[in-house]
């Protein structure tokens, strides 16, 4: 998708291509606004991480974008083709892995399609397995393959690495980064892990009080190094925004 960002852009006349456009979104539970007059734009192919303390409304926002929560006010524009990976893999335990991957695809998709998607996440050898026999990391990768097999223009990730152990998480993060670069879809990653956000995203948003409270561009070359002083600076700044004091950071 060619978007000439260097040309003279007059916002009113030529609308820039967008993967997500949210304007004045409000979602209230029993009168309490969890998402409150929120504005958000994602460019096609952009990787955005959404940080925030638990209960700040970041998961609610993702559910709205996924189309799972329609009790909303405001404008929400999202691509028709969306993929979602939740914190739990949410695979149907009664379907073999490859059938899980193809579930919901229109028509009669070929098994080869699932095999290809599973190969891409490094699970070509578990095509025929039952989901309950997979390890946590494997199940999460199946869930990722299931989201990617429908070639989404927008990939929504709701803390997909939250339940993984530290070693598995590092691999899964790297995998998501690679898949994103290969596929070129826009990604919204909801997480509470600042390091993960800075490692992967073009842009990190901090959500607080139901809106985007802070925005931070990450203009470091990929692959990014945790030891890079600029990385550490961004990380420290974001932690500060999230209310983590420097003393606690050092600990």
């Amino acid at each position: 998708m060619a978007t000439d960002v260097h040309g003279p852009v007059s916002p009113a006349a030529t609308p820039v291509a967008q993967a997500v456009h949210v304007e004045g979104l409000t979602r209230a539970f029993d009168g309490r606004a969890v998402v409150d007059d929120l504005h958000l734009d994602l460019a096609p192919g952009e990787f955005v991480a959404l940080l925030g303390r638990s209960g700040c409304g970041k998961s609610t926002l993702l559910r709205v974008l996924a189309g799972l929560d329609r009790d909303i006010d405001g404008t929400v524009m999202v691509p028709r083709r969306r993929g979602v990976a939740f914190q739990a893999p949410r695979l149907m335990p009664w379907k073999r892995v490859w059938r899980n991957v193809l579930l919901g695809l229109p028509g009669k998709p070929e098994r080869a399609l699932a095999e290809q998607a599973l190969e891409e996440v490094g699970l070509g050898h578990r095509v025929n397995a039952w989901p309950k026999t997979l390890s946590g990391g494997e199940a999460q990768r199946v869930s990722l393959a299931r989201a990617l097999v429908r070639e989404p223009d927008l990939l929504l990730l709701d803390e997909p690495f939250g339940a993984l152990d530290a070693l598995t998480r590092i691999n899964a993060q790297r995998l998501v980064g690679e898949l994103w670069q290969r596929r070129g879809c826009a990604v919204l990653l909801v997480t509470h892990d600042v390091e993960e956000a800075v490692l992967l995203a073009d842009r990190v948003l901090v959500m607080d009080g139901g809106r985007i409270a802070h925005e931070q561009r990450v203009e470091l070359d990929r692959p990014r190094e945790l030891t890079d002083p600029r990385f550490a600076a961004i990380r420290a700044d974001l932690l500060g925004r999230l209310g983590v004091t420097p003393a606690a950071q050092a600990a």
Partner: protein
Amino acid sequence: MSISHAPPHPSDAAGTAKPPASPTLQRLVPASSRRSRLPRWLRRTTGPLTLLVLWQVLSSTGALAPDVLASPGRITQVAGDLIADGSLPSAMGISLRRVAAGLVLGTVVGTGLALISGLFRIGEDVVDAPVQMLRTVPFVGLIPLFIIWFGIGETPKIAIITLGVTFPLYLNVYAGIRGVDTQLIEAGESLGLSRWGLVRHVVLPGALPGALTGLRYSLGIAWLALVFAEQVNADSGIGFLMVQARDFLRTDVIVVCLIVYAFLGLLADFIVRSLERLLLRWRPTFTGR
């Protein structure tokens, strides 16, 4: 507990650390070598066999009169006679046919109602309350009413079995549908499944374990209902055989019929188990076999 006899702490200030005293080691015997040489199945059969021998001895010595309970030998002999003259096989055939008819009807009605009230909110409002009310009526109590309605032919017997089968199935299928993980339903929605697709790929498979539990209960109740139905003015079937035997004080025939009931029940249970193994292969408990 007194600690006064504890050895002095080894960390002397002088620094001449003695090597720690080596504890006495104990061999842990593997479980397999401790097992008795008698195989398990043999040990398990000794209990019932002892009872059987005791029963035979009591009968042979006359301590247990034949009109109270026939001896095992006599029962075996009678069973052979009943099979030889064809009365037992024909009675079994008739009884089996009744159970099958009631089971099929009850499964259709119970599952159908559960689907209506499980899948649709309006169905729940309309169907669930009446079913829950009817459920509390003991179905055996309806036999007199059914005889007045349907006469004394096959219909009231099958109706009783149908009724007994319907409710456990309804309850379990309904609970199974309503118990499907909402997270999975949401995942299905996020994958773009239609309403029917959600039912087919998420709700029904998710309700299957509950449905099979219901089927097991239903089978048990079907035999129970059969016994009741056949002992009230029947002219054929195992129940009839028993009523007839009662009139002639033939405890041997009664015991043979009871054994037949037990075997039929075991057979039914085996069928459901096989179904479970086949349909619930995805559950981790079934992968190991």
